[in-house]
């Protein structure tokens, strides 16, 4: 009985491992399949190319399946396609070399803009605190009308 349970557990574990492997393969296939475009010129992702009689997609999909199986690293799969079909076949720029700049520039500029804004606000607040206190009834009337305008009352 114990042996039977042991064999059963072993089979269950193997099935689970296969299922996990299969799910991982499918996830990588789906992910990489939209990062490579069909070389037929339709401009569509490889696994979305829907042209009947397309002379590229069937073969490329087979190649995608085999490269996903053979290479554990996604970048190796994409590089294989770049070597085979040229650099334009991959729709996602790589994360090294010159192509890294496409990823780095937008967040760096965004962060710089936010830092600059924070710096300016601090400077303006400091200047406002140092400014002379307001005085005079005429100016108060002006401020009241501005407050009304700003609070939309």
């Amino acid at each position, binding site marked *: 009985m114990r042996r039977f349970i042991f064999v059963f557990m072993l089979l269950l574990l193997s099935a689970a491992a296969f299922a996990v492997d299969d799910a991982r393969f499918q996830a990588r296939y789906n992910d990489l399949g*939209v990062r490579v475009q069909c070389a037929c010129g339709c401009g569509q992702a490889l696994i979305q190319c829907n042209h009947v009689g397309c002379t590229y997609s069937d073969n490329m999909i087979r190649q995608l399946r085999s490269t996903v199986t053979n290479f554990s690293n996604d970048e190796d799969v994409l590089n294989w396609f770049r070597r085979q079909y040229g650099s334009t076949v991959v729709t*996602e720029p790589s994360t090294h070399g010159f192509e890294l700049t496409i*990823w780095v520039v937008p967040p760096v500029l965004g962060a710089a803009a936010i830092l600059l804004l924070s710096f300016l606000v601090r400077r303006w607040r400091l*200047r406002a605190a140092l400014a002379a206190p307001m005085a005079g009834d005429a100016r108060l009337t002006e401020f009241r009308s501005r407050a009304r*305008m700003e609070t939309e009352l």
Partner: protein
Amino acid sequence: MPLIGSFCLLLALSLSLYCFVAGIIALVNRHPAALRLGETARRAGMATFIATAVAAAALVWAAMNNDYSLAYILHHTNRALPTPYKIAALWSGQEGSLLFWALLLSAYGFVLRWRHTVDRKLYAYASVVLSGIQIFFLLLVNFAGNPFGVMDSVRADGFGLNPLLQYPEMVIHPPMLYLGYVGMAVPFAFGLAALIMKYPGEKWIQITRRWTMVAWLFLTVGIFLGAHWAYGVLGWGGYWGWDPVENASFLPWLSATAFLHSVMMQEKRGMMKVWNVWLIFVTFLLSILGTFLTRSGIVSSVHAFAQSSIGAWFAWMLGISFVVCLFFFLKNRSHLQSENKLESLVSRESSFMFNNLVLLAACFAVLWGTLFPIISEWVRGFKITVGPPFFNKVMIPVGLFLVFLTAVGPLLAWRKTSLASMKRNFAIPAVVALIVAVVCFVTFKPWQDIAHFYSMMSLSLSALVIATVTLEFYRGGRVLQGKLNTNLFGAMYWLTRRNTRRYGGYIVHFGVVVIFIGLAGAAFNQDKEQEMGQGDKLVVGHYELVGQKYTDDDTPNYESQSAILDVYKDGQFVRTLYPELRAYKASQQPDHVVAIRSTPLEDLYVVYEGRNPDTDRPIIKAFVNPLVSWLWIGVLITALGTGIALVPNAAQIKSPVTVPAMVPSDSRSAALGGLGATR
């Protein structure tokens, strides 16, 4: 007709030139006769519209009468083409679409000059700027892409319209998009005019805002009609592919959206004047840049029919426009001093500032991704492709942050927000968003897939926005309810009528989050493709498709193969779908007619892909796309909100007939001003 058309185009160009030159002389000259000269310039500008309209009508007339002596008509129509598509031929090709641009620009110019009494001097300056742009388009249409070119010999039938354009949306999508693009020239003209003449006060910005909203509305509707067309025609199950042409329309939309927000800072607090002027300039320049990118062919696009040699003209136009803007900015920048400074990072002003930064960051990211293949070619000698994976990775987090700001911004006070006020305003929306987040976390399992995580965030933040918008209406409605002695919904109606801009804006925000709800569904798309004979079954999601029959048809315009498929959902018959594959006779090009069963929860999207050449069996591809219909509903809500924001406030409409002084004891009437009369 070709003669009339060509003559009218030359006449329109002459009138525009006169409007430009005489307009400038009238503005710089102080002689009393200058006023009369300015008036002739204005009338010449208005007459440009009539001349351009006659030229456009001549082209449409030629299309309707199958005049294949015209090269343009020969290449874009054929005898069997249905009438609406013959009219649409006006904007279906390069030369016609340039004429259409010129027509729309002259129409905007006509309205602008018609309304010159609002502010004669400002409108005179704006009219000159607009005529400068008009000259560019009329030069193009006269000398670079004349639609009235005549053939040496006349053929019996035309080559037909691109099959992808033979779709109902295509009759209205380009006009909407062009109205948006061209419309951005009007705020640009006002912005530049105000800068040139050092316009005192902020009235010009109010005038500009309204024009920008109109153009923004058209651009929004145009973009989404394009998305709907892509969804219904291209047969890949999606609606947005980050193609350079799509990006080109999205760029001015982003900067115009930023302007529509930051303009409030200038109106309320006299801030961000330099920023606003440059946002207007950038929006117009992006419209030209987008056209340059797609028409020049320097970036690859699926919209290949739009490519030609006129890119150089647009490059010159872009350069000249930029130099003119920069010159007048440097000359008159002292006029753009801010009256106030930002005082706190937690305030309405700072939320607008962040909103602007994020929108411009998004604009830059899209532009950067679109231009990077060219930069790569310059630097390394070969092109790369930048497609949806890049744009999705960059733009989804940016979009989610914008939704967050959409929720937070309107609840912050001007100048500075106290902690107590934040707690009071945010408690209920935060709880609602948290509940949605927990439900999504349990059902979506976001740790398994980043797309599920984004979907969860999108729905939670959308809930946050909906809760804040609802609360704003509820609180405002409650205040008015007692005063007007009406029910809550009636009070909300009057609340919106009293401040159409603010509450119209909230409705726009609501529409935008409904669009985000639609986008969130994309994480759960499913698809399946298989060969299907009669009686075969295809299962996708909880749908089962059964092949009933496969038929062929032959019409004067096209031949088609179609499938008749019965659809079952959870075992229950729901309806029959008829996906089709057409081959247009004139152009010999294929086209999918997708069958869609749309429900609020999901779309069943079925494509007949043709027959397998080896087995001769039909291939069917089916998608289940959750929540897609909310995209289109969201656009309708956004358009409604923009329309409301464009309507003048009720109190302003009725103010001439209200006499609050006559009933001083009635505090209600006094408080409500004109509202008492409107009721």
